[in-house]
């Protein structure tokens, strides 16, 4: 039974694309046949985060318009045999696709994949409506900041109004040191405000920048965020793993040990 999951947030820049790339990679590592779809038409980014930007021939709009077959547009990630990317179009805009076409597209993919992940564009306009149209489940990404949480709340309202099956929360860029000294809302605070179930918490981790620079998602690697993303993937597969807020390497102790290592 395959599942279509949309990764959304409302606000831009909170980590939707990074989260999509890492959850996709993690699910493929765990043996799931996974398709990642970049639905941000006009501003494609998932390809470059995945490191697959040089292999694009056809894109989502080509598939929808019938310029190519689905198999021609899907890029296979050579690092993980189960992982495919359907890139977005860079030279078109959001009106090139409508929700009905997106439903058909995700339905077609269900035959070949266990998980179909849709990376949603920021905002609540047509791009958002396209992305959520075919989804069975939604993951709302937010950071512990007032603006991101406000937008996440709005998105949750819109998802619930559209009868989205399961809506779960991912809190990104958590800094345990700031939470500890009271200068950042905790994961529990965010959960309490948004009142939806938590799927996972990702620490603010420098390795994410390095990973994006290299075009290599870090799910499953020995980094705080890599572990957090793998935990999320296992929870998606139904494993009961308690949420751990891994330390992003900015605490006093880790700074001290880092300093001592350098010295």
């Amino acid at each position, binding site marked *: 039974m395959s599942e279509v999951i949309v990764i959304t947030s409302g606000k831009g820049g909170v980590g939707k694309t990074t989260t999509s790339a890492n959850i996709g990679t993690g699910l493929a590592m765990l043996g799931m046949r996974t398709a990642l779809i970049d639905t941000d038409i006009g501003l494609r980014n998932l390809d470059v985060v995945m490191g697959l930007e040089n292999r694009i021939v056809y894109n989502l709009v080509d598939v929808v318009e019938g310029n190519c077959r689905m198999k021609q547009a899907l890029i296979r990630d050579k690092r993980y045999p189960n992982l495919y990317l359907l890139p977005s179009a860079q030279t078109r805009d959001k009106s090139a696709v409508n929700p009905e076409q997106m439903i058909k597209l995700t339905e077609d993919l269900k035959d070949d994949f266990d998980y179909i992940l849709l990376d949603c564009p920021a905002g609540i306009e047509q791009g958002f409506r396209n992305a959520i149209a075919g989804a069975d489940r939604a993951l709302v990404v937010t950071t512990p900041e007032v603006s991101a949480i406000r937008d996440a709340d709005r998105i949750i309202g819109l998802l619930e109004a559209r009868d989205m099956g399961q809506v779960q929360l991912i809190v990104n860029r958590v800094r345990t040191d700031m939470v500890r000294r009271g200068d*950042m809302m905790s994961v529990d605070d965010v959960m309490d*405000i948004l009142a939806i179930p938590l799927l996972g918490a990702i620490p603010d981790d420098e390795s994410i920048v390095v990973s994006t620079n290299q075009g290599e998602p870090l799910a499953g690697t020995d980094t705080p965020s890599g572990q957090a993303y793998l935990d999320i993937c296992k929870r998606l597969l139904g494993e009961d793993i308690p949420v751990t807020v891994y330390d992003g390497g900015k605490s006093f102790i880790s700074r001290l040990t880092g300093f001592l290592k350098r010295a």
Partner: protein
Amino acid sequence: MYRSRRVFGNRSGEIARKRLKLLLVADKTNCSPEFLEMIKDDLFLVISKYLDIDRGDMEVGLTKAFCGREQIPALYAAVPVDGSLIRGHFHAVI
């Protein structure tokens, strides 16, 4: 800065949490700050008939409250009485 924040109350995480709680309910109910000011004015007029209160110390806002297992928007009013630190809280469901 550290000291001033200690003296003047909450750390910024707590401030963010409180602001968001009010903001989200206001967003959902289309309830503007002016509307709350109007309620505050009327509350002040009524309560000041019976008690010696200061309008500047009053807090009126929207929050979420549990009604059984369900969270519902609730009007929140804190009216310090007689300038002392005693705070009267009451909730009215809107």
